[in-house]
């Protein structure tokens, strides 16, 4: 058994931390929460230049060939600074499916531009039924004139108002098994019939409702096979869930440090509040939740990186980590008292994002239920 990380992984973590501390101060994060696009071309170019956009892609398409566990370590670092921008939705949730399921032509067309920042994408998964599994795919794609016509709504699409393409699952055939009859499409955001409405989220990131009204797409726009997109949906759900866990784990470390720093210096009743047992126990409980979440998240990331079947490990990790980090930031708030609730203080930057990551790709109830069924119960 080996719990350590490779030299490459450790170097990536260290260099990412240094880079992000310089390039992403919290003042920038706050400014981007007020910005319509939510990130800057300058930032995107810098991220491209350090090679992160091409990190997980195969080398033959200009990538670095790094595995999913390594990618998660980078996501952890990004979450530590609340990095704005579509890295997760573009590189991870669209880039990885393109690399794994794309045709030769699609890989040639998309991976290099995604990798050097010339092109961005976003995943449009959730619909008004807000179901996390394949039964939630109800947006209709009807075959017509050799192509397809799309009708329906996608919700909570990150950075839809600035990316070039969307990747979305649609329902091309209704059968008894919701895993069957799904088709993924790559659709340019400029497509006629596509309307964006901005949504206001708890994380203050630019998310949209994307309405499809008779949006025409050609057959070339299909990712993978028609009606056989269920496998892509499930894979993206796994990457989404564990990528979210990685971000939760990164944020948790910062919240724990912020909290211990605060309680060491905040004085009440004549002594630092960190010397009171109630506060000490809150902090100890936070440490337990941080460590258990790391353990279960890294295991799932490793399973995915190693290409092993990982459904149970993914649901264990997401079901646990979402809840655990919610407990963690809640205790963080409790230890901070009222100051931690102000916008001026940094804690709320993390708690609001953590709530987002806890919920997307399945909350705890969903994954606990799913785990019990996967275990044959």
């Amino acid at each position: 058994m080996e719990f350590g990380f490779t030299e490459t992984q450790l170097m990536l973590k260290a260099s990412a931390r240094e880079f992000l501390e310089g390039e992403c101060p919290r003042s920038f994060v706050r400014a981007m929460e007020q910005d319509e696009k939510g990130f800057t071309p300058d930032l995107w170019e810098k991220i491209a230049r350090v090679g992160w956009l091409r990190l997980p892609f195969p080398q033959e398409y200009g990538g670095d060939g790094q595995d999913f566990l390594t990618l998660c370590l980078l996501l952890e670092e990004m979450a530590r600074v609340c990095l704005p921008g579509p890295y997760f939705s573009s590189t991870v949730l669209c880039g990885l499916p393109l690399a794994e399921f794309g045709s030769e032509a699609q890989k040639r067309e998309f991976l290099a531009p995604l990798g050097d920042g010339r092109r961005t994408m976003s995943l449009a998964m959730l619909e008004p039924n807000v179901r996390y599994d394949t039964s939630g795919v109800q947006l209709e794609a009807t075959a017509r004139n050799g192509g397809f016509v799309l009708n329906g709504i996608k919700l909570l699409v990150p950075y839809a108002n600035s990316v070039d393409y969307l990747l979305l699952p649609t329902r091309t055939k209704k059968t008894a098994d919701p895993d069957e009859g799904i088709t993924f499409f790559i659709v340019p955001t400029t497509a006629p019939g596509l309307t964006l409405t901005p949504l206001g989220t708890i994380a203050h990131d630019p998310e949209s409702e994307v309405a499809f009204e008779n949006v025409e797409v050609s057959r070339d726009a299909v990712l993978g096979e028609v009606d056989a997109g269920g496998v892509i949906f499930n894979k993206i759900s796994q990457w989404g869930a564990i990528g979210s866990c990685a971000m939760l784990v990164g944020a948790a470390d910062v919240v724990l440090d912020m909290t211990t720093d605060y309680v060491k210096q905040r004085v009440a009743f004549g002594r630092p509040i960190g010397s009171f047992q109630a506060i000490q126990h809150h902090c100890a409980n936070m440490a337990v939740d941080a460590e258990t979440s790391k353990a279960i998240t890294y295991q799932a990331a490793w399973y995915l990186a190693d290409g092993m079947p990982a459904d149970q490990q993914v649901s264990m990790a997401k079901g646990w980590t979402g809840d655990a980090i919610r407990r963690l930031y809640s205790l963080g708030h409790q230890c901070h008292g009222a100051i931690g609730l102000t916008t001026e203080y940094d804690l709320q930057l993390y708690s609001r994002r953590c709530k987002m990551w806890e919920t997307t790709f399945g909350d705890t109830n969903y994954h606990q239920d799913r785990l019990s069924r996967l275990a044959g119960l």
Partner: protein
Amino acid sequence: MDLRLTPEDQAFRQEVREWMKAELPPDWDSKERLIDFEEPEWVGFAQDFRKKLADKGWLVMHWPKEWGGQDDPLKNMILTEELSYWGAPTGGQPVNQLSAMLLAHGSDELKQYFLPGLAQSKWKWVEGYSEPGGGSDLANIQTHAVKDGDDYIISGSKIWNAAHADGDWMFGLVRTDMDQPKHRGISFMLINMRSPGITWEKVPMMWGKARGLVTLDEVRVPQTNVVGESERGFYVVMASLDAQRASLDRLANTLRIVDLLVEFARETTFEGQKVIDRPGIRNQLAEIMTAVECLRLMSYKVAWLQSNDQPCTREASIVKIFGPDTIQRAHRVGMQMMGAYGLLEPGSKWAPLYGKVENGYLENFARTIGSGTSEINRNVVATRGLGLPRG
């Protein structure tokens, strides 16, 4: 990162399992909660079991080679986990904490005398830490010694141990210098339980088993029985508690109960209703399955860090908090799953899983109390792990 066990390790685990199943009493599964390895009728069996482990070269694999070990803590971990999973007797404190302390601090005479015998499971041991007047506040112990020639004369009492199981030797903390306060003036020493002046009684506990209360009334102990420096005993013991192994026996107990509950949930209906479909059960069971997986990963990580001679205080302290909570929660979930059937004791008609959940539920109240209360462990994580100021 690679979380797989090697094929050799898996083969060893299988070998242990097969050997152990042949050695345990017949109908072990149904009798497990009724058999007490500390009761007179079973004490001999448990000792023989440990001696057989020693004969197979399995009892002290984690020890240094010069004292009969194999320098292989990972292999010991696999053995301990397997034995504990099935509730079989393990080496326990004598071949872990006590021998670690002897190796680190014992005089040559003490090492030569005790270590070979410990490796052969020659004696039954009694822990002498907690007293009726204090457990968490170990620095405040009152059992005291007065010098008499080359000996100490010791009086006091020790509780919550296995004294009632016909112990041969005690390892414990005694105040040897009354002029020094609190944690100074305490020595760690070995006391022959067959000495005149030692009596013991059973303290029945609510899960049907007992602990021991030992009274020492002017017991004569050679001063050479002190392990380490005199008056430094508190630090010797605290260091060994810090270095405490990942408690993989506890992990295994927890894995076992959750495996039993999952199997129970898969197979059981109460008059037509599947247990898994009872309200709230599905998510509770999934949560505890996940918690146990977290515990397994963290316990293995501690063992891995230790076998690589890396510091593991933070992870080990967290396991000390998370482990007891998890096993308690597992039993609560089990009781919930079983509904009113969960109220039935081992041996009762209708008791599911031979009463393992009911009995384990009661016994595991001790988990957040013994070997360091959860409150103390949280204080330790906060002050030593996170650097918070002491109160």
